[in-house]
């Protein structure tokens, strides 16, 4: 294949029309989803509303699709990009013409993505992200893969020349490839509370969306029948509850495993000389590069079970990346040695020395109070909904709450070395947060009026990607840390990006 000349304005692959069309159609139908169902049902019921017959509806639908298609074609025709010396130029817009110019040095990330449809017609999309403006995200939705890779290389070319001259001799090294077995373990050992909440939210969301239709089906009466308590049926109820709990647990397991598989299918970490590349995904194939200088925080998570299987995840937080992208920057199922190696690679000279310190025991008092409040709310709900009958649940809740407080304190620590701050936290998960001191954006001391009496203060550290807190430490120590961090940031004049 001849190399593409990016200096001339050019369109994306003509298959782009299909992608744009499909994308627009899906967003359109998503927006009017409820409306469609409402219309569809009422039309099926009464055959026609006023003069609108099903045939007319069908024709209208086709007309809408045609309009979307025409828009897609126009969008495709008006979408042109090219590279001049150090800038990426993009012209878009059918009626309002937009001309975007991005200097190469401001490009933070270039992703190559491939969703299911793009996999079918064998194209990839290239997403260019800059730090700062959330809106200036640019996506070229259809390019064939060699062109995309070339474009990516060209986009990064300038900035790499500045740093070192020899990125051209690409040393590729597939450093880590996940096996299905490890993915399965990863999914199984996940914190199932989260999956459970997601399922709950999903069901609840569906329910409120279809509440009207469900009402007509008189589901609520049925449920009310089921819930009505009789003494004879108490045993029945217990069994039903048990079945429901087992089903929910099973579903959250299944959900976790399937989710892990879809997101991390064929996860691959490729090591280049300076950067690290992540490839993964089943329906949505993505490929992204991490540049160490752009990294603001590293978050390492694991838990008891995962530790047993030697599974660790590493999330990389970059500046101003939107939440949806942010979760892609996660490498799961790493072994301890691989994790250490990657940490070393992404944070140059990460040293784990420095004293490990713990928050004051006041930490436990605060979490105990939070738990107490939580228990009161739960008890209130149980009392309100079921009367005295379910208060025995406290036998379960109270020890759990105590364990929660105990582990939260046990896992909390912080460590400040010359260039890094490491903060440990977590209850079920064990989370380690690492940030480089010279990337700090601001520091804050926080103290409530009650903490003032007993001289306890928290330190909040802001970076461009997230804020972390060193909770509840001695006031004097907090001031020392505060001054030290500021001194470090202000005396070095190192760039944060």
């Amino acid at each position, binding site marked *: 294949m001849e190399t593409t000349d990016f200096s001339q304005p050019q369109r994306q692959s003509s298959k782009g029309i299909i992608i744009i069309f499909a994308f627009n159609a899906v967003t359109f139908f998503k927006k009017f989803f409820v409306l469609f169902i409402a219309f569809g049902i009422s039309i099926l019921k009464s055959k026609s509303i006023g003069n609108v017959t099903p045939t007319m509806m069908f024709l209208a639908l086709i007309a809408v699709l045609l309009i979307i298609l025409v828009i897609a074609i126009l969008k495709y025709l008006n979408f042109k990009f090219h590279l001049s010396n150090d800038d990426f130029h993009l012209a878009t817009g059918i009626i309002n013409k937009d001309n975007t110019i991005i200097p190469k040095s401001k490009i933070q990330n270039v992703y190559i993505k491939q969703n299911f449809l793009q996999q079918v017609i064998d194209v990839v999309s290239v997403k260019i992200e800059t*730090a*700062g403006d959330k809106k200036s995200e640019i996506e070229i939705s259809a390019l064939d893969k060699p062109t995309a890779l070339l474009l990516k290389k060209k986009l990064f070319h300038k900035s790499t020349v500045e740093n070192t001259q020899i990125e051209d001799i690409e040393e590729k090294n597939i450093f880590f490839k996940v096996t299905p077995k490890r993915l399965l373990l990863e999914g199984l050992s996940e914190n199932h509370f989260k999956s459970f909440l997601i399922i709950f939210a999903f069901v609840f969301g569906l329910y409120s969306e279809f509440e009207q239709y469900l009402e007509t089906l008189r589901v609520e009466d049925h449920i009310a029948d089921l819930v009505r308590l009789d003494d004879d049926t108490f045993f029945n109820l217990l069994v039903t509850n048990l079945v429901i709990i087992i089903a929910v647990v099973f579903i959250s397991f299944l959900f976790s495993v399937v989710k892990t598989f879809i997101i991390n299918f064929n996860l691959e970490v490729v090591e280049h000389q300076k950067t690290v590349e992540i490839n993964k995904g089943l329906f949505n194939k993505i490929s992204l590069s991490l540049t160490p200088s752009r990294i603001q925080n590293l978050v390492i998570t694991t838990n008891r079970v995962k530790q047993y299987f030697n599974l660790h995840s590493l999330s990389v937080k970059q*500046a*101003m990346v939107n939440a949806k992208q942010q979760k892609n920057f996660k490498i799961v199922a790493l072994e301890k040695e691989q994790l250490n190696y990657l940490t070393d690679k992404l944070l140059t000279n990460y040293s784990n020395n420095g004293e490990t310190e713990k928050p004051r025991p006041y930490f436990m008092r605060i979490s105990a109070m939070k738990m107490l409040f939580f228990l009161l709310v739960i008890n209130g709900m149980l009392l309100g909904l079921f009367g005295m009958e379910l208060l025995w649940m406290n036998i379960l809740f109270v020890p759990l709450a105590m364990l929660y407080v105990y582990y939260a304190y046990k896992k909390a620590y912080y460590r400040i070395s010359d260039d890094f701050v490491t903060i440990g936290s977590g209850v079920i998960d064990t989370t380690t947060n690492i940030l480089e001191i010279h990337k*700090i*954006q*601001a*520091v*804050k*001391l*926080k*103290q*409530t*009026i009650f903490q*003032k009496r007993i001289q306890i203060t928290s330190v*909040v550290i*802001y*970076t*461009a*990607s*997230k*804020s972390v807190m060193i909770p509840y430490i001695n006031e004097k120590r907090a*001031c*020392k840390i*505060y*001054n*030290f961090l*500021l*001194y470090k*940031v*202000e005396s070095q*004049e190192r760039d*944060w*990006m």
Partner: protein
Amino acid sequence: MNFTNLQIETDSLPKVEDLDLKPISKSYFKIIILNQLALYAILIGLVFGIRYFIEKEEEVQLNLGYMLAIVLGFCVVNFFISFLAFKKRKYAIREHDVVYSKGLIIHSVTTVPMSRIQHVEESRSWLARHFGLATLKIFTAGESGSDLSIKGLPHLEAKQIKEIISNKVNGNN
């Protein structure tokens, strides 16, 4: 290579706790008073409103005295807290950073290094213009939590600080 790695005596670092923070302009308290008074007026109005509507609809007698006492009590406490909190609003501009402290119940001291400031903005509301005050907004690249907004500066001073910071920020680049 001129590389040194001297040990830092942490005790000799510039201390933020010894810093002499400057209180914001006294006339900003007038703005706070006006805002609070408006809030109290709404609250008291609500008490009368609720009484009026509920007694009209249902046959309940609500004790106006108690309700007013509760609301007034809240207003007094709130006013007192606002006054104390006002005294906690202090700031300082150092050579390398901007420090701002505020809050009575949750007291916080935030420092933004000059080298991390993205841009500075000076804004004046209608009331602030009336009292010759301005708000200085300092933006960083971090999430919104790390942005500073120093309210109630004398207009001239806000302008000066803005100039100083802008010069520093541009000078560093």
